[in-house]
């Protein structure tokens, strides 16, 4: 899976949770929850959905590493590669 494909998949899931947010309007290096206006429940939903799509385990202990869109994409790229 290419980096582009990973980002597209994440954007698609984010769009299901916060459809009013335009990907072009957000800062990909900033706090993901704030940029997309998502609460803890939405965040959990996102992580669960991504876990299913990428068929990977995302333990709660790793949530600190996926704080921004870029960090999340990096994390997923690392997971998919291993």
């Amino acid at each position, binding site marked *: 899976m290419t980096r582009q494909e990973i980002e597209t998949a994440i954007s698609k899931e984010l769009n*299901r949770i916060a459809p009013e947010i335009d990907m072009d309007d957000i800062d990909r290096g900033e706090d993901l929850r704030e940029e997309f206006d998502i*609460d803890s*429940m939405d965040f959990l939903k996102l992580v669960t959905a991504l876990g299913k799509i990428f068929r990977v385990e995302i333990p709660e202990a790793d949530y600190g590493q996926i704080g921004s869109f870029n960090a999340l994409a990096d994390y997923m790229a690392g997971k998919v590669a291993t």
Partner: protein
Amino acid sequence: MAYDQIRKSPGTGPASNMADYDLTRATFSWAEAHKSIDGLPNGKLNIAYEAIDRHVAAGHGSQIALRWVAKSGVRTDFTYQDLQDRTNRFANVLRARGINRGDKVYSLLGRVPELYIAALGTLKAGAVFCPLFSAFGPEPIQSRMEIGGANAVITSSRLYKRKLKGIRDSLPELREVFLIDADQEGTTHLAPLMDAASASFDTEPMDPEDTALLHFTSGTTGKPKGVVHVHEAVVAHHTTGRFALDLRPGDIYWCTADPGWVTGTSYGIIAPLTNRVTMIVDEAEFDVNRWYDMLEREAVNVWYTAPTAIRMLMKAGKEAAQSREFRALRFMASVGEPLNPEAVVWGNETFGMPFHDNWWQTETGGIMIANYACMDVKPGSMGKPMPGIDAGIVEVTEDGAKELTEPLAMGELALRPGWPSMMRGYLHEQARYDKCFVDGWYMSGDLAMRDSDGYFWFVGRGNDLIKSAGHLIGPFEVESALMEHAAVAEVGVIGVPDETAGEIVKAYVALKPGNAPSDDLMLELMGHARKRLGPAVAPKEIVFRENLPKTRSGKIMRRLLKARELGLPEGDISTLESDEK
């Protein structure tokens, strides 16, 4: 009961603020409790004086009042002296900008120090403080500012731009917008004014019945209700903090609630400070490791949190907690919705002590029914009424209200009014307020029962309100926002069970002719609702129906939608005129 009673070790009771529940209850009076606050000359008082000034006057100025942990993890400490200095400056800024006694000062902020300073500085100036939750969208913000008649608001440039700027023209009474971090057209940058202001201020002596706080709560129909609380409420905040949360001077205390909700004000600002504890305030949202770090590293003694957070911690597993040492932890409490017995037991196994569930409402201003340090815990029960609070299980019939005294009888949870933090009204809505009282009882709207030992048990809600992640959400507010979309003909909104959040908001939508249900339209409606309502209120699930069940008068039968969703008996459907399709 399926769960064993959690017995307290013999030493727990005598060591806590309330050693013996029955004895305290028998001897308690609010007049006596009033002596635990200092007050101001001539029978006046001010919440902020009890929270800050009296401790500084007594020589505790160097104690840390607030330890703020930024998202980055950086900590900033504010002593009681610092808080006095800054709240005085804020009160002076308000004065200088023409905000006076009785004016309404709102906050729309995340958990940053300015929020706490503004809350207490506003009270010092004799103005009314009204906190708004920063995850609200523009519509809930607008209705709450309109109803309350906001005169000033303190917010950040980001929140202003996203949520306030667009509705400002509809708020004629709003004279002042303070931004904590920038200067924008039509706003006032707070920081330079704070720097220039004097650090001394004579805290405004208030009449005990003067309004101090305005908290909004949702109704099943119509607009949100502005719940009025007065300065006298501080007596209840202080006392309940002492008895129900076992707060002691010098404790490290962490209340995870946001001040945008009543818990985050009564027990996230007022009660901890009047009891002279050190409050931990975390700017960040829930995160398992961060939370365990916080409890361990900050050596938290008393922790007040919510069922949704506890269930998220449970989900992460015991292992995440087992590598930690919570040596300082002494007391844990939970509020927002009933804590399921599994979570109480899990707390006991994981932390070596149970979560102490308690029950209260925005209207009651403070904890009414609780599990106490000195009392055994029955997992799943909300506990027993606070000293000074008379609670009953009441049935209302044509003949009026009748208390049901036989054990386990089900009825509406009701309270005898008269405690200091009881609401004094719904703003501009006398009729709605009057409806809360029947034959000398305040009717809570919750169904409950009392067992033979006097423990109260939550049974269900007596109305259509939704409790999601501990937040009370009115279906009408959500329905109204969806109705604004051009494709929508009718909407019914209910809460559906969710294992983590308790309930989530689900909307049933029927479309106008010419519109076909599709995934794209569903996402469009979701975005529409989120933009207006914000993530805390917007539905998490939207489904389409050809028609919604309605009464003859056209009222959508949420009750029926819910019964069907849950697979429960439909009950009396004699008023059903047009059914769901």
